[in-house]
């Protein structure tokens, strides 16, 4: 049913419909409205789940690890420093192959303290082994939760998943969102059937000790599961489209990319701005297109190489920076295009800590890219430097 609702509340509705049995989270701006809404559902019997209140994000994800290993569908949500505090548990959850789903309302990392949006938090978690989905709008943020559970819980995958959407820009914005009925949600997402679970009658331990003869192979198997996830995501996304009319089978989406000379690569809510800017640039005769990355882990290397093979130049927008190097997406897009003749890839770090990115900024970046100027921060206020 179409509802006019805040992004956080749409996500909370989606989570409720996924029927998590255990929720543990610690409130942190701009994620708070999600967990407030879920606590309200549990308190008012709209969701039959155990809501474990904890003293920190470290405890929240730890509670989820135990609950997931015990065979429960589990959920958490966080952002920024909260995700950083979960860091060591994130690696363990992935290594134990627990299909926990966690929402990230993307926010900048301190210091300096900033509650505003960029993607540094989840991008910094890219190596932990979690699947990572990124949303352009609240509809996508909502729908991706169903897909995340479906893929994470697939026995051939068994990896946790992050569903990321831009803090405030999406989480606190009202948009019309089509929310599934419980019957539809149940049809798409059956009950969690773990491959193995903690059981006192049949004891098992998770994430045991691996000597140097085995550790490398465990990491290799996790990497293989990540790569297998591409097909599982495609299948789960297609099934969602067949049932509900919104197809998420593609890990990346092109917008006016077929005949583009300049391609922009971006993730998250910025893609909407980019599409509007592209429409205006096209009206002025510039052949510009967009490749939107929906799935960052597993990284769609081959898909990007194929979609960008024909363009002259690529401008990659990064709302993150690996300090001392470059934006994460730019590095990976360049890797995807390595060996493809005649395509120049330039990265632009922008929008950090909630700095607005407008259509005119996108146009300016395309102009810079056409001149071969890039691999830089964009939009610096020189007067304060």
């Amino acid at each position: 049913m179409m509802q006019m609702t805040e992004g956080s509340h749409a996500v909370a509705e989606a989570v409720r419909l996924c029927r998590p049995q255990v929720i543990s989270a610690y409130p942190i701006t701009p994620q708070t409205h999600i967990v407030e809404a879920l606590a309200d559902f549990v308190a008012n019997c709209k969701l039959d789940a155990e809501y474990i209140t904890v003293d920190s994000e470290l405890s929240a994800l730890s509670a989820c690890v135990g609950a997931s290993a015990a065979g429960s569908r589990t959920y958490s949500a966080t952002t920024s420093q909260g995700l950083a505090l979960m860091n060591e548990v994130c690696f363990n959850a992935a290594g134990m192959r627990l299909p926990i789903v966690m929402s990230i309302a993307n926010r900048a990392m301190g210091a300096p303290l900033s509650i505003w949006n960029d993607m540094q938090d989840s991008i910094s978690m890219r190596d932990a082994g979690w699947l990572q989905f990124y949303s352009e709008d609240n509809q996508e943020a909502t729908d991706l939760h169903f897909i995340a559970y479906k893929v994470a819980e697939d026995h051939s995958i068994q990896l946790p998943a992050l569903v990321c959407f831009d803090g405030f820009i999406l989480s606190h914005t009202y948009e019309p969102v089509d929310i599934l009925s419980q019957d539809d949600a149940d049809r798409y997402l059956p009950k969690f059937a773990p491959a193995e679970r903690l059981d006192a009658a049949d004891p098992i331990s998770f994430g045991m000790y691996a000597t140097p003869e085995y550790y490398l192979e465990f990491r290799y198997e996790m990497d293989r599961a990540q790569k297998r996830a591409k097909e599982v995501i495609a299948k789960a996304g297609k099934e969602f489209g067949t049932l509900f009319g919104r197809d998420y089978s593609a890990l990346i989406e092109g917008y006016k990319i077929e005949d583009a000379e300049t391609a922009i690569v971006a993730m998250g809510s910025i893609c909407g701005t980019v599409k509007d800017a592209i429409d205006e640039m096209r009206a002025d005769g510039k052949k510009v297109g967009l490749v939107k990355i929906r799935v960052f882990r597993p990284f769609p290397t081959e898909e990007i190489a194929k979609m960008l093979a024909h363009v002259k130049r690529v401008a990659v927008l990064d709302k993150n920076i690996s300090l001392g190097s470059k934006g994460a997406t730019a590095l990976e897009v360049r890797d995807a295009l390595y060996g493809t003749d005649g395509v120049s890839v330039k990265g632009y770090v922008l929008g950090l800590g909630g700095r607005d990115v407008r259509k005119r900024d996108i146009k300016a970046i395309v102009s810079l890219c056409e001149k071969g100027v890039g691999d830089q921060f964009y939009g610096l206020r020189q007067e304060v430097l």
Partner: protein
Amino acid sequence: MALAVGCRARPGKAGDNKTGSWRVFKPVFDHEKCSKCGMCQTLCPEGCIHETNEGFFDPDYAYCKGCGLCAVECPKNAIEMKQEEK
């Protein structure tokens, strides 16, 4: 041992874990020099040295971690630690 997804394991015995791969130096027993005193078997922290039918002593290389205690304490210097290539 085949890998279990998520390094999940059912309860087992310490004996299931072959620790021989930890070894860098391998004790080689020279039965010519051995006086059959059994000191090596008594001292072995891994408990992996057994008496043969002839009364000599041999380690179980599946478990011997190569600590070298037997070689140091052997009164006849009948045990030599040799670096192992793997």
